[in-house]
């Protein structure tokens, strides 16, 4: 198995080559964060910048959302879900395919820092990692935690860990999905009555601060003005009123249906640890069942809910 250092070195080499050959103006990736268990999005333009690029399992935020901020040619370091979001940006006409270079990395999954702290609640001073293990160092102790035991929930059920369909080059080993049943827990939810579902969703959003970090961290949320920010008319109240807050989350989920790649950026950004993907997963499953469509695997196919045809066979549309 390739080590984190080897993957990082290959990313750096690739970034340097792309910049030197003038193929791209900037390489978007991650660098080491200023605190333990944190990576920072990094925009490499020089050789020095490139030397800071790393591969880590503490990458919280999907980088695809940054792409449309650049007008020139851009390379992006992408794990499986991120690469699918990048493809989504092209399919939805936010960026041009010819301006894009995907450095794909086979991904063993990102870790959930909450789960790490649940396993080891003592105050750490330093945290290091290798490809399979997190190592926490306290004042007079250290602990090893196996990454596979503390993966983010979306990483446990990820079916596209290696972006082999769409990446311009691949770094690291090809990673196979973990055995899982992605929709198992949704079956229980589906049998609930509408009233019980409402209770379930109200509980889910308890504590929401209406900060919209989920929206800002989501590569799908690129609307110039979000419906919650519109004032003429104002569609939604701004307080922590339960129904207003729930309306925001449900509407955002509908806007993302058939487009969400389960990257978990929203959940990682949420300061209140709200399991936001519950909303998206239900719709993700619906779209997959109804149209056999998985977003971000093809450069041509549009998300089903963004297209229409005059000869559509469904009656309701006519």
């Amino acid at each position, binding site marked *: 198995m390739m080590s984190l250092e080897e993957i990082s070195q290959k990313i750096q080499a690739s970034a340097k080559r792309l910049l030197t050959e003038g193929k791209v103006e900037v390489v978007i990736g991650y660098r080491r964060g*200023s605190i333990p268990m944190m990576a920072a*999005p990094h925009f490499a333009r020089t050789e020095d910048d490139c030397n800071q690029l790393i591969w880590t399992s503490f990458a919280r*935020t999907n980088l695809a959302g940054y792409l449309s901020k650049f007008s020139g040619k851009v390379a992006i370091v992408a794990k499986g879900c991120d690469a699918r979001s990048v493809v989504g940006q092209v399919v939805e006409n936010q960026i041009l395919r010819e301006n894009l270079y995907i450095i794909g990395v086979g991904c063993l999954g990102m870790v959930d820092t909450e789960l790490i702290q649940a396993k080891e609640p003592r*105050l750490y001073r330093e945290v290091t990692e290798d490809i399979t293990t997190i190592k926490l160092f306290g004042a007079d102790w250290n602990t090893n935690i196996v990454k596979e035991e503390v993966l983010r929930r979306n990483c446990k059920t990820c079916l596209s860990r290696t972006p082999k369909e769409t990446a311009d080059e691949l770094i690291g080993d090809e990673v196979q999905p973990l055995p899982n049943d992605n929709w198992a827990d949704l079956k229980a939810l589906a049998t609930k009555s509408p009233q019980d579902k409402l209770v379930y969703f109200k509980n889910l959003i308890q504590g929401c*601060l209406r900060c919209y970090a989920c929206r800002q*961290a989501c590569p799908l949320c690129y609307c110039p003005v979000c419906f919650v920010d519109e004032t003429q008319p104002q569609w939604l109240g*701004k307080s922590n*009123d339960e129904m207003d807050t729930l309306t925001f989350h449900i509407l955002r989920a509908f806007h993302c249906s058939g487009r969400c790649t389960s990257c978990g950026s929203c959940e990682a*950004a949420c300061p209140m*640890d709200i399991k936001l993907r519950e909303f998206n997963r239900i719709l993700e499953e619906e779209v997959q069942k109804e149209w056999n469509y998985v977003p971000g695997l093809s450069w041509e196919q549009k998300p089903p809910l963004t297209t229409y045809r005059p000869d559509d066979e469904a009656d309701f549309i006519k």
Partner: protein
Amino acid sequence: MTEYIVKDKLTFLRALASSGYNLIAPISMKNKIQMAPTDPDKVDLDYLNTFLSPKSLFFPQTEKMMAFHKDLTKSDAFVYKPLGLDQVKPSVIFGLRPCDAKGLSVIDKIFQNNRFTDPYWNTKYEPSVKIGLACLNPGPNCFCTAVGGSPFGEIGLDAITLVRGNGFGLKTLSAKGEEFLKNTSGLEIGDLTGEIADLKKKVEASLPLPLDLSKVQGATILSIFNQPHWKTTADRCLNCGTCTFVCPTCHCFDIQDEQDEEGGVRIRNWDTCMSWLYTVHGTGHNPRPTKTERMRQRFMHKIKYIPMKQDGTCGCIGCGRCVQLCPVNIDIREVAKQMNQG
């Protein structure tokens, strides 16, 4: 000021709860430690700090300020009447970390000063008794000492305690604290001066050194405003506003009117300078048009404007919440260093 020995934690918390004040203290809610009204038996003292800052005790995320009704048979139909300004049972807040107490005092100077008083803040903040809990074991992201604070800091507190065996050491810090605690049962007068000084020195030594902000203090606003690093840092900023919502000194709000068939309310909600909507004018013009200006505003406010208006007190109190929760690792310490370098 008086120093006391408290033999037993729970007896003391029970005494606080039966003092005629509401006890507010750290408790575990949804796996997170939060400040909330509680029974003394449920107080959780094994915490680094509360997950969110305690500002919401006095400045909630959503606060109803006024209400009216639409019953035309009554003469006061459609007349806004203030809410939440009646005298209520005051609170005793136990377990504030010194950084957060200092943060509250920063907001206090904004909400109550010689020009105006915010009655919604004042009604709750003023009568409350604030008892701090000194930090003996600060966390990996704590940096109060870097911005003029201390794990034993006394600003904004009426008394401070430190865990001492099964009980506490306690020192009163204000006349209000003195008055409140002199009638509390289970306290014995003691001498903690040497002990506090030793512990303070030891814990402070484990924390970061003061940030050099001398050039920021001397520089003009405009020269810092035009520094080139803002753009580079803002490149990765998502403008998500998490930093402002979790910050103990961020205090901006938005006022909204809402109504239904029966009546209406005027509400103030936390708002954030990271949001485009926060500064957009009725004309459509936005003086902070991109995320660079919006992100710069927050750091200028913390590190330049608040110190200018509050005799050098930094607007950042070093709790580390924004550093830990920023999804893209924008670290206020790094930004402050860049501001000081120019």
